[in-house]
């Protein structure tokens, strides 16, 4: 996947850190102090559908070109910039009975983005 830099307008991954102290949750979340949530942004013109983030095979590339040429000019149906790789977040927190809970929450950190 591609990380967003400068004025990049193509589909890329934007880093975004959530600080639990900033959102006032540091009293009940013991560890970590925050996490890199990240998110996907940018455009996915037809000819790059299925590109970075999902290994574009030769077949996909040809299919993309066919789509772009045949579908040129038709409205709608663009592809979207979506997460293509995500990681769990390990959390240690207090529940409402002040019990300590340790758990791994799946799919919380966006690692890579790509065009659907």
């Amino acid at each position, binding site marked *: 996947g591609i990380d967003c830099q400068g004025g990049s307008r193509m589909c890329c991954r934007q880093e975004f850190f*959530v600080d639990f102290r900033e*959102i006032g949750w540091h009293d009940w979340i013991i560890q970590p102090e925050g996490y890199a*949530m990240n998110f996907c942004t940018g*455009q996915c013109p037809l000819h790059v559908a299925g590109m970075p983030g999902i290994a574009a095979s030769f077949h996909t590339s040809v299919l993309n070109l066919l789509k772009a040429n045949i579908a040129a000019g038709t409205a709608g149906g663009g592809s979207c910039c979506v997460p293509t790789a995500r990681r769990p977040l390990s959390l240690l927190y*207090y*529940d*409402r*009975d*002040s*019990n300590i809970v340790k758990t791994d929450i799946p799919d919380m950190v966006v690692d890579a983005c790509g065009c659907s």
Partner: protein
Amino acid sequence: PRAGGQCPACGGPALDLESRRELLLDLAKRSILDKLHLSQRPTLSRPVSRTALRTALQHLHGPPQEALPEDNRGQECEIISFAKTGLSNINQTRLDFHFSDTTAGGMEVQQASLMFFVQLPLNTTWTLKVRVLVLGPHDSNLTLATQHLLEVDASGWHQLLLGPEAQAAYSQGHLTLELVPEGQVAQSPVILAGAAHRPFVTVQVRVGGKHRVRRR
């Protein structure tokens, strides 16, 4: 993008940076609460001392042992619950544990164990009976579900693996244990309950895992 511009992803009006930040932080909060099966963030009733927290964390297990296929592993949790010492006297110590978030869908208790600290006179061995008391289905009285015998021959932390009765009590949200010394000992040992030695129960739970389908 600058305010008044166009969002590169959806073509709608671009948010200014501050509004976008607020939106993303709100998204992060909702995402965490949804995946913890919580409707709102917990308000802490009884904060735990850092000392007790540090002691307990030393006893947490590492990552889950068996790597199950993603589709039926569910979310693994480990829970540490500190005892609220109930009515105790020289002949017995009663420990009460409360678990309110046991309603998360598909909760499956994997293992539960009691950790307690004993101060024992030198060169003595002590037999301890641990009685597991559970709330009756229709009344608020506690009934004896089972009991374990444990030989203690040194001061320090001791662990007792609790069986299915205690695990069932966890799923009902309330577990009471009574620690009763067996036989006569010259000088009665002490079960410590100070900040650094609070007894606690650790429970390993799987939430939302698909129940294994028996293939015939």
